[in-house]
């Protein structure tokens, strides 16, 4: 057995094609509340795309070009939508107690995504290079310095913050989203909480 065939066989065993991309869902998946996960992912892709457009011309472009400013606006609003959809998705998953049935890791990866997204948005504000950035950096440094983190994560260092914002954090979020979605596919969508006293359906 080679490493390759082991990886392939284990992957296919864990995620046979019709589990990875099913064309059916359990009958109880019948509420608009279920679309907020995919809306979050779609928003994430638009965030990445608009961020990439900003990267083409660099971090100063949006200050000096109307088109650049519009692209910056695209990036801002896609982020607002991303955060809004993610939080609605989070509310839904909480009220569904979606961690039941060995789905704790699905909740945990989702929570980590949320926290990482907050951090990514934060670094985004830092690299705007305007009054916001000047104020946010000099204020946030106090919180981070007070717990020792600021000594390594310097919010006043534009270069460091830009690289965290466009490279490290998006990559981390991407990986965690992937794990999160794979976990949903592996365990299936969480079934409803048990019906009223009387036992099983």
């Amino acid at each position, binding site marked *: 057995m080679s490493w390759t065939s082991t990886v392939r066989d284990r992957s296919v065993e864990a995620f046979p094609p019709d589990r990875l991309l*099913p064309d059916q869902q359990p*009958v109880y998946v019948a509420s608009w509340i279920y679309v907020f996960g995919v809306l979050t992912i779609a928003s994430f892709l638009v965030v990445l795309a608009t961020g990439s457009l900003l990267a083409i011309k660099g971090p100063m472009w949006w200050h000096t070009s109307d088109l650049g*400013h*519009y692209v910056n606006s695209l990036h801002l609003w896609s982020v607002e939508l991303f955060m809004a959809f993610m939080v609605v998705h989070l509310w839904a998953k909480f009220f569904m107690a979606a961690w039941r049935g060995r789905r704790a890791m699905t909740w945990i990866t989702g929570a980590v995504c949320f926290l990482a997204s907050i951090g990514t948005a934060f670094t985004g504000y830092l690299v705007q290079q305007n009054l916001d950035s000047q104020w946010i950096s000099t204020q946030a440094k106090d919180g981070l310095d007070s717990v020792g983190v600021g000594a390594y994560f310097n919010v006043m260092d534009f270069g460091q913050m830009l690289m965290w914002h466009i490279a490290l954090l998006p990559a981390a979020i991407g990986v965690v989203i992937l794990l999160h979605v794979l976990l949903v596919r592996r365990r299936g969508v969480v079934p409803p909480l048990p019906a009223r006293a009387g036992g099983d359906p």
Partner: protein
Amino acid sequence: MSRAVHEESWVGGYRDYDLVKEFVAALVAVTLLTVGLAFVFGSPDVHQITLAQWSNASPSDFLATAATELDRTSGSATYGAPYTHDPSAAQKLGPITPQNWPGVTKPVDTVNDFVVMPLRAVPGDTQLTQALGTWDATSPGQRDSWAKGYDSALQTASGDPAKVASGSYGPVPVLLGQLLRLAQSGGLDGALLEQGRFYMTDYTKPLLFLADGTYLEDKARAEHLGGDQWGMMNETGNYPGQPWLWLYTFWYQVKPFSTSDNADALVWGLMMLLTAGFVLVPFLPGIRSLPRYLRVYRLIWRDYYRSVEGSRQLRS
């Protein structure tokens, strides 16, 4: 079947569902929403402040700040880790002071970095050269005494050097006066950033200097960005900000945090705890049972419950 098995995997009915179509629809919807919102509302861009702008708009505040950098009483000079060596300056999180653990990783010497070294680069000013010469030839104790004396005299004179009472200040009035001129000409912005280098991407020093004064804070507070204004959540103008930071900023508004010198450490310590709780909800007794009691799930899965409980009623 036991409840545990029931919760793990569904053995009931399925329905056709097109995930790829759903994803494409979501992508189109988000793209259209983004394009529309960006077109209608745009995005904020309140211009950055330079030291030149600060020193021209508010020379007395600039001078007063520069005086505190020179006598090491400014916020930056008395900060402690990671900028200066002063373990007693660290915020306390109960019995511990994590601020001190990494040590001084970003050393800042406000006297030299913010005042003396930028002035050394100014050419052709004999008065300044003499002042620097006097400064260099004096003991640190004497320098300190001059700087502190001038600082308090300047404060008494409300930041107006013309009104400062006569006293023994050595070369300090000349040094600070020239620093003001350097700042107003725009030379200090570059000097603080470059510090002798060509390329730079780290704005720590100019930002620390800027934040030691009140000009930046005044501008920020005018935009409701101050810490006690729930500022962490806000954006300039009427733009939405970061509503998801509501709990982070909430603690700063209430006692004991709002009146504590250790507010940052306490708030961040508390938030780290609550964050751990958030991540570990599935394991927290009580919290993990809340959905059952809140019964919102009855609304989400109402069709399912209707069919299951309805049919059971028919059976019984």
